[in-house]
């Protein structure tokens, strides 16, 4: 039989295209993606009594602490919104971002035992993190909606705005930003572990440079610009504007966030693709 170059199904080479996301392969492995999501969800509440209730406990307690420390003690404004709603909206969005980021940034180190033994498109793993965090987010979002309904009946001064239609896009931006940043960090940590230490408190610090515990409207001048430089600020403000009708959202800031996110996702993909091939040798 005469052999031509084309009739091979797979050619393993030292290098391949850096921007090739292998989306076709990811599609082939979509069942695996779903399995990982299911695994994360099931293993989360296995051997717990409260089970999925834990999804609510964490944001509720955080909200309580913020109300006490930032609301009552520090007296920071909440844009004339009921304190619980103001904090909870920020916490819900931020939790999604920070969880995606921290988990994605450990993806190579945590899964080396799987990656070292079997091949599948590595990007499946971070994607599964984004999706399983999304499930958690939707559960926590329902908590926010219940709280909103409660305060609405109480006659509190807030109303969702048309910007709520922007929420899916904001969600997509958060996921892309976390994925991009996470991929960069995870790729760098395969050889040098220094960034592992940075990420744990880095995410914490990043939260304070985002408008989670204070509104953007309370800032002026240089500080306002500095905080706006953080692409998460516009997203959080946009979420608040959509759900609660208060937030300093501008389309210029939105465009800026989109641009930064695209750039970070691009770099993340680049380094991830470069590293995924040989990281097993160095991790």
């Amino acid at each position, binding site marked *: *039989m005469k*052999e031509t170059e084309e*009739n*091979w*199904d*797979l*050619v*393993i*080479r*030292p*290098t391949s295209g850096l921007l090739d996301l292998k989306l076709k392969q990811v599609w082939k*492995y979509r*069942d*695996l993606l*779903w*399995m*990982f999501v*299911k*695994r994360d969800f*099931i*293993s989360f509440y*296995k*051997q717990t009594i409260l089970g999925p209730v834990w999804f609510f406990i964490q944001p509720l307690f955080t909200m309580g602490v913020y109300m006490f420390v930032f609301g009552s003690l520090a007296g920071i404004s909440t844009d004339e919104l009921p304190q619980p709603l103001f904090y909870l909206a920020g916490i819900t969005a931020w939790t999604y971002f920070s969880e995606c980021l921290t988990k994605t940034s450990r993806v190579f180190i945590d899964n080396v*035992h*799987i*990656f*070292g*033994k*079997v*091949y*599948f498109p590595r990007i499946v793993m971070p994607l599964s993190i984004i999706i399983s965090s999304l499930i958690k987010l939707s559960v926590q979002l329902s908590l926010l909606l219940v709280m909103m309904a409660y305060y609405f009946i109480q006659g509190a001064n807030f109303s969702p705005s048309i910007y709520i239609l922007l929420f899916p896009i904001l969600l997509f931006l958060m996921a892309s930003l976390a994925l991009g940043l996470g991929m960069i960090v995870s790729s760098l940590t395969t*050889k*040098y572990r220094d960034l592992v230490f940075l990420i744990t408190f880095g995410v914490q610090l990043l939260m304070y440079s985002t408008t989670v515990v204070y509104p953007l409207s309370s800032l002026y001048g240089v500080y306002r610009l500095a905080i706006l430089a953080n692409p998460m600020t516009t997203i959080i403000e946009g979420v608040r504007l959509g759900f609660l009708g208060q937030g300093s959202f501008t389309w210029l800031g939105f465009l800026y966030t989109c641009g930064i996110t695209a750039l970070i996702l691009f770099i993340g993909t680049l380094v991830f693709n470069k590293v995924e*091939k*040989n990281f*097993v*040798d*160095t991790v």
Partner: protein
Amino acid sequence: MSKAIKVENISKAYQLGQFSTGTLSRDLERWWALARGKEDPYLKLGETNVRSTKGVSNVVWSLRDISFEVEEGMAIGIIGKNGAGKSTLLKLLSQVTTPTTGQIKVRGRIASLLEVGTGFHPDLTGRENIFLNGAILGMRTKEIQKKFDEIVDFSGVERYIDTPVKRYSSGMYVRLAFAVAAHLESEILIVDEVLAVGDADFQRKCLGKMGEVSKGEGRTVLFVSHNMESVSKLCSEGILLENGTLKYRGAMGDIVNEYLLSGLDGKEAIVNLMPYNRTASYNAGTVELIDLAFENSVELSNVFYWNKPIEILVRFKVLKKVEKLLVGFTVATATGVNVFTANNSGNEFSFEAQTEVVVRINIEHNLRHGLYTLHLGAMEGSQDIWWHTDVANIEITNLTPGIVYPSNNSGVVLCDSTWTIN
């Protein structure tokens, strides 16, 4: 027949040692060289990968210029000593890591089993893990559903299928894991010594399944193992790797011979003494056993060929001057039956005090293949000094280069018999 795998000039380099700040500056240097379109400065110093000798550079070629082809439906065994590059080759084939140079072309779907139970989650039930593990190995959920009953049946853990796998015994865990892997529907199956697990019964079942996969279903199998018996049973052709290069490619029988011969390189194996039983001695403190070593064994191990003498070097420390030292040994079966005993009676040794001496024992034997144990003793004249039982294990293999093993019957020793009609 058409080719399933074509490996072209594959090499793989690894960096030795620790990664630290030193590596960062080297990385920058390397990056700078590559950015200017020059050759990687740290890959030039290539040398063959010999485990025991110290190299000059800290880059090592785990595989060097390997090329071979595998035809569709063939079962190929890959053998070689530790560090020969077998696992690296499998890693490259299963895309876990990429080659430094060269390329591999593949026709058909590859499923690799470098380990059983990859990705098993302890908190998930057996059922959930079947689906998860199957998906990791590249199966679609539908395929797994179709084969689910078969998998459970093969594993024999039906009763525990809805129990988290962390409650499984290690045997059950492995059984379930292998069962999933055995039901993969891929054209090419890559297996790395997974059969070293489970009980004898299950190992036989696994081997049977693998034979079925290659012979019955006509799929291509690449099999890496140290167990010559299972490799030669399963594979018709083989590849012998040595220090990262392809030494020999051909029929499996020849490869096994080549491999076993390469083990006979005249070096001696130092044997760690087992925690042997010391028996009371009247004259302790005259001579002490230090250690022993085997010669003439397969690849510096405690495995001997059935048709070659066993050579044992025993090292003693002589504390007090001895005039008539008798050294004796017994070879016993694993079940405790003494097969033979010998000593140097009529050729007693005498040694000065405070010396270290090595006594060489050459044993012409006719043991059948199997496991044996060695006892050692020392006497001065007619007085016992000590008697140590189970100082070392000896294994006799029935695989010998070029010669057919004479018997598959039972018993402890081999015998020659002549048959005539009277």
